[in-house]
């Protein structure tokens, strides 16, 4: 069972904010989902190698080199929020103050 305290802890990790009522609902819903997932406990898998990718081929490698041209102008075209225009002008991402 997932408790409200656990929901609070996970929401902090995910950087998501929920009201008390939403947290109560989430605790119930996540418990239901985990109950469905707990069927995995039926199986003993100690000797099984985890499958991380269905591509069992070797990872391709390439030379470490610059392939694209200067796209610094394009990087700022999708900014939003009240500092978007300033960011486009100075070509820097504008964030709230980090150091007090």
């Amino acid at each position, binding site marked *: 069972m997932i408790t409200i305290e656990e929901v609070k802890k996970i929401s902090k990790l995910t950087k998501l904010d929920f009201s008390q009522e939403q947290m109560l609902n989430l605790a119930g819903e996540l418990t239901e*989902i985990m109950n469905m*997932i707990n069927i995995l406990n039926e*199986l003993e898998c100690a000797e099984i190698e985890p499958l991380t990718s269905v*591509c069992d081929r070797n990872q391709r490698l390439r030379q470490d080199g610059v392939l694209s041209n200067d796209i610094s102008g394009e990087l700022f075209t999708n900014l*939003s929020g009240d500092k978007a225009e300033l960011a486009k002008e100075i070509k820097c*991402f504008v964030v709230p103050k980090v150091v007090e």
Partner: protein
Amino acid sequence: MSEIIKYTISQAVKALKNKDFSSTELTIAHLEQMNKHQGLNAYITETADIALKRAGIADQNYHNNSQRLLEGIPIAVKDLFCTKGVLSSAGSKMLSNFIPNYESTVSQKVQDHGAVMLGKTNMDEFAMGSANITSYFGNVISPWRAADCPEMPLVPGGSSGGSASAVSAFLAMAALGSDTGGSVRQPASFTGLVGFKPTYGRCSRFGMIAFASSLDQAGVFTRTVEDCALMLESMMGFDEKDSTSIDFDVPQLRTACNASVKNMKIGVPFDIMQQDGIQPEIIKMWQDTIDILKNDGAEIIDISIPHSKYALAAYYVIAPAEASSNLSRYDGIRYGFRAETAGMSIDEMYTKTRSEGFGSEVKRRIMIGTYVLSSSFMDAYYLKAQKIRRLISDDFRKAFLQVEAIILPSTPSEAFGINQKQDNPVTMYLNDLFTIPPSLAGLPCCSVPAGMSSNNLPLGMQVISKELDEYNSLRVAATIERGSKNISFKPKGF
């Protein structure tokens, strides 16, 4: 001219070559149909200007006899594919202002083959859903209606619900979708369409907005198996921009559509068929399909996928875990939605942006994903799920030593009402019961319409083949299509 929207792609290509009508006329007919059926909410963005411009180029190419494979064919593109200069929202408020500077490889490839993009289709937010009821841009409605309750709007399935509704209602001749756990096959089944998810790695994921990277794969909706083969030939292929892309030649797939299944060994997991809880109509469709294949000379073999009952649970660990990681990029800083955060700290800005930008299903999956990846549960859930993924993949490998294709229903039920199955999330997740096992194994699968429920709603059959063997999935699907030709998979009134 409105009847030309009913042509299959193959028929339309012939007619365009014959100059029976032009691509511009065909495109206008589709734009009119889109306008007439705005109520389905199938498109998030319509791109009429781009479409008419490309149709003009197509007409010129036909005039010069330099036409390409899909020259002048109007198609729709799921809003999960990044399209240069055109809004690509993934159905989310988080990307509701995102206009990419680049084109996804798959949408580029189909347009390089001459296809005309009509617009971007609606979808469940970040492809998370089975009913297309989680989009920031509203629900998509299916053009189908149940015989016993014609006033109730039905879901088209999800997450590629807009693409499914668009092709089923003749708002496009084909549509690109994406399939992580069934998001092409399940809506194809609900709307009477052919839906195909190729082998993982066959289609480049470059420019596809990520949900669960080890499972995400581009797919396609068409009205016939032959059209599906045409689209796949243009979509698939190696791309160095995707590190999981398979460098393997794309075969000619259209010949599969006329190939018989005589002497072909086709597997049926009879143990699954005998499980409780599967609707009798689904079982009947399955049995009818077996008869069609037997009549064409196939040998039906009883196979077993013993770990398939663990697939849903393993998927709902792996997919949310990958999603929680992939969606951590949405912080409001570089692109996408940013909440008003005057006077807040950077942490508060992240939290407010993410809390306002994501919908409830996406938040739920991020929470589950973070939970199963947290240090205390990593081994018990995430690692365990990956081990079970290995067992399921091995089950399929063993089965394919005996058979060349496997048939399973696409969905456990017919389409349902917009407001049904919302009591708890697990009820909705069960929709993907049959599509998830082959997804975990990365196998190619085709959903083909194979029956009608007593409610006069379409039911789809899934054909699974081994890695890189799209040909045999299409070959079996085409046989099922021929055997079901007496059934009309066109929604009433369309």
